[in-house]
């Protein structure tokens, strides 16, 4: 029954409305990171760029297509790593998102914030995160508050990394209750931009 529930959560019919995937990790990698992912609800791609090579702050951008809900989302955020890399490394993110819903061209906008903790080393980390946010959709002036917990496993081998990510939680709909959300995703990252351009 428990397994069935987990499967059900991860195949929830909607999983949009949350902070970024790419910044939901405790360690900010020293190089420019490109990432593409495919999940149970969304596909997307994005990048995280440190302010300077090895800097402890950076920017990220993501473009997401929710293929079951047929909506598009753009996310951007600023990420700050709390300390130099060690076994337990934390970070915070602050950003925003923009949803485009095709019928009637409804638009949703709002800020997101997150706290992340990476446990591990240069090669393998387990990342835990919490995310919160507010989004308002203009057609009905409807607010929703996405609240999420994340866990991801990340393996980096040279210029490449793969990850398995699980995210679940609720969207709180003020005055109307809540909606359960969940998604599982696999990601592929590439860090070889600097090396490729120097050649």
């Amino acid at each position, binding site marked *: 029954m428990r397994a069935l529930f987990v499967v059900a959560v991860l195949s929830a*019919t909607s999983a949009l409305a949350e902070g970024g995937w790419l910044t939901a990790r405790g360690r900010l990698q020293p190089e420019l990171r490109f990432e593409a992912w495919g999940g149970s609800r969304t596909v997307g791609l994005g990048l995280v760029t440190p302010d300077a090579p090895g800097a402890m702050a950076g920017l990220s951008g993501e473009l997401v297509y929710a293929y079951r809900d047929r*909506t598009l989302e753009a996310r951007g955020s600023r990420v700050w790593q709390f300390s130099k890399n060690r076994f337990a490394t934390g970070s915070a993110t602050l950003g925003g998102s923009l949803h485009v819903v095709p019928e009637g061209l409804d638009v949703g906008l709002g800020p997101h914030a997150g706290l992340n903790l990476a446990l591990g080393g240069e090669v393998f980390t387990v990342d835990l995160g919490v995310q919160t946010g507010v989004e308002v959709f203009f057609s009905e002036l409807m607010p929703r508050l996405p609240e999420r917990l994340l866990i991801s496993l990340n393996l980096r081998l040279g210029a490449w990394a793969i990850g398995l990510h699980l995210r679940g939680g609720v969207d709180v709909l003020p005055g109307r209750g809540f909606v*359960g959300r969940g998604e599982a995703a696999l990601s592929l990252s590439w860090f070889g931009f600097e090396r490729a351009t120097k050649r």
Partner: protein
Amino acid sequence: MKRLTLWICLSLLGGCGLATPRTGQVVGAGVGRAVFEARTNGTDLVPVTVLFPADDSGAPLPGPHPAVVFIQGGFVATTRYEWQAVELARAGYVVALPENQLALAFFSVDYGQTARTLLVDPPRGSLLEGLVDAQRLAVAGHSLGSVVAMKLALEGNFQAVVLEAGFPDAADAAQVATFAKPSLSLAGSLDCSAKLESVREGWASLPAPTALVVVPGATHYQFTDADTEDRQRKCLPDASLADTHTRVMNAMLAFLSAALSDGSVGAASLAAVEGVTVEVR
């Protein structure tokens, strides 16, 4: 190349738009079926299966018709309730079955309201246009779906509520006490999941006008299209699935006919349903 890229982008984003069928598929004599999509909570796309009185080509019979929004039980597919929807449609009702998140209506209570909105304010040009009488609209549900059906009824946009093998959420007790619409509670005497005592206790919390109909020998999943789960759990029914279906539907039709016309529970019609015991307040 630019045009192709733009076309791909627009196709991905818009797909074919929301599904708003103009005609349905005939699924039985006089009954059509169509699947709509409705947008809610900003980005959620909710599939809603609608069964309706139809002609031989699947085109809807002219309305307005009374309607029922039906909420599925926990982890039970909406298709397993289509036998009820077919019977109701054959009797002149339009029935909408929203697909809830995780097949757990509790995670997306407002999808019932989304289905209601689809019925009373349908997409222009769709088969639902002018089909439903917004003043004759009931909400029904099975098991966990009945808990959610009661919550939807308490929000005030439905004229009647039917609880199948379930009861109101204790957390809603204060609101239930002031509920002023007709209600019907249907119970199976051998239900192992929503035991008769619990359903009776829940029914006791419903204000008048209300009716409790007990189907003898019926089990929990006999409200769906099969009682396999009951049998696997050694919860054996003492009535055939066909007999239970007949009794459930006769009671629902007797109730809905009265509730959506004069606001009563149809005590006389319910008393005439064969093979069930009826209590009315």
